[in-house]
């Protein structure tokens, strides 16, 4: 099966086409596009940013992120895990909320400091 995608490695934005069985890439103007398309097809990953509940007087949610990209297919599972988290102030940038999510070695950390 052929899958169409736009390369986001550089601003050119090549329209790529990849065969999902043979992993043959076309439409790329440079080798980076080929590599991008293969990773996108075999193991696409994304950094996830969201918020979790916090008892701060300043705002009701505090922002979080994964320390690096995690498999794309796990994004909604991670979102569900975040629902049950309830942080207490003070929270500070880098505080670990979830450790080693999906055995990726990546943590979910707070990206905002709230003292009160």
């Amino acid at each position, binding site marked *: 099966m052929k899958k169409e*995608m*736009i390369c*986001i490695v550089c*601003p*050119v*934005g090549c329209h790529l086409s990849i065969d999902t069985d043979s992993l043959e890439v076309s439409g790329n103007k440079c080798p980076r596009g080929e590599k991008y398309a293969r990773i996108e097809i075999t193991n696409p990953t*994304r*950094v*996830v*940013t*969201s*918020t979790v*509940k916090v008892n701060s007087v*300043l*705002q*009701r*949610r505090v*922002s*979080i*992120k994964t320390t690096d990209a995690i498999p*794309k297919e796990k*994004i*909604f599972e991670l*979102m569900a895990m975040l629902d049950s988290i309830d942080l207490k102030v003070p929270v500070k*940038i880098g505080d670990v909320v979830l450790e080693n999510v999906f055995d990726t070695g990546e943590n979910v950390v707070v*990206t*905002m*400091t709230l003292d009160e």
Partner: protein
Amino acid sequence: MNYDLIIIGGGAAGVAALKSAYDPNLKILLVERENRLGGILKQCIHNGFGVHHYKEELTGPEYAVRGIDAIKTLDVDILTDTTVIDVEKTNGTFTVRMSNTTDGDHLRTSKAVILSSGCYERTRGAIQLPGDRPSGIMPAGSAQRYLNMEGYLVGKKIFILGSGDIGLIMARRMTLEGAKVLGVAEIMPYSNGLTRNIVQCLHDFDIPLYLSHTISDIRGKSRLEGITISEVDETFQTIEGTEKHFDVDTLLLSVGLIPDINMFESLSFETSRKTNGAIVDQTYQTSVEGLFACGNALHVHDLVDFVTEESEKAGKSAKAFIMENHKKNKKLIDIEASDNIGYVLPQKLDMDQPFDEVELSFRATMKGDKGVFVIHQGDQEILTKKARFVMPAEMEKISLKKDLIDTTEPITIRFEVTQ
């Protein structure tokens, strides 16, 4: 109380301006209307900030803290939860009228003022959308604040008008939080957002992007019930027979931002019709001596990194203005946008101010994969620069050396597409 400098707005721009304007001999006040510094970055929880300025990828709140940490030990006054109501200038002194719950309505004076008050979102009224007027229609940035800071998801079935980055970011964000985003419509034949956001915010979640489409009808009594989009022709008129209907409870608008300087009307500085912000010289000084402007209050930026850079320059200029007592020159050289350029900043050049080169920031009005920017003075071509992948959504920059400027004739910049 008398200050040397009052900075209005404590977002990325105000914080950067404060850092570079600081001097132990100056009395500086920064006024912020929210409960703490950081501005819009507080609600921009996604990553991608700081790649230029800090050489690493940060989320909005993390970027904000970098700037705030750099000023928090400085001996300056910072007032939060305080709104500036008016600014006046008489006999060389600015009077800033402000209000908060501690001191009520009160006045502070200064020798110089920096406007770093950010921008606001265009609303439904600004783009004259047809149809009913139910609830459930709001700017995308407002929905972002509700969701990321207050914890409210403003709807379950969403449509987004405008493919600017805020719209795209919110398409993903609402989807992650359980809403269904049925589509994004863009009146232009190309997206106004970064390609990376098209891929990671729309393609990742199979959200369709309807280019050359706009809203042709809105239905709903108390709450929004549905919208209709139609294709548009080259003159942006809707084409009959191309209607598509969507049952949605929420319509988010990502249709542009406007510098928030309306409250400063009594100052009557010159403004630009193209940027909706002040007209400035290369020191970011407006037509009112001692009044500086930077950040989104001056012109809307696509990258906060550039806001920081620009505001550091504005802060430095304000400091030089106060300490070295520079007088603003009456005779300024005009810098004008010519063919295929939407606007250029600064719009004026003051040859009496000390500078070696001036950085021109500008936007093209058309896309071009390959082309050249040409700078003229009078009929003399003084600088050309090759350009690749030019698009209106991305701000371009060129440094122009002072010794290339020989006369007092206007300087113009144009964009020639070669491919």
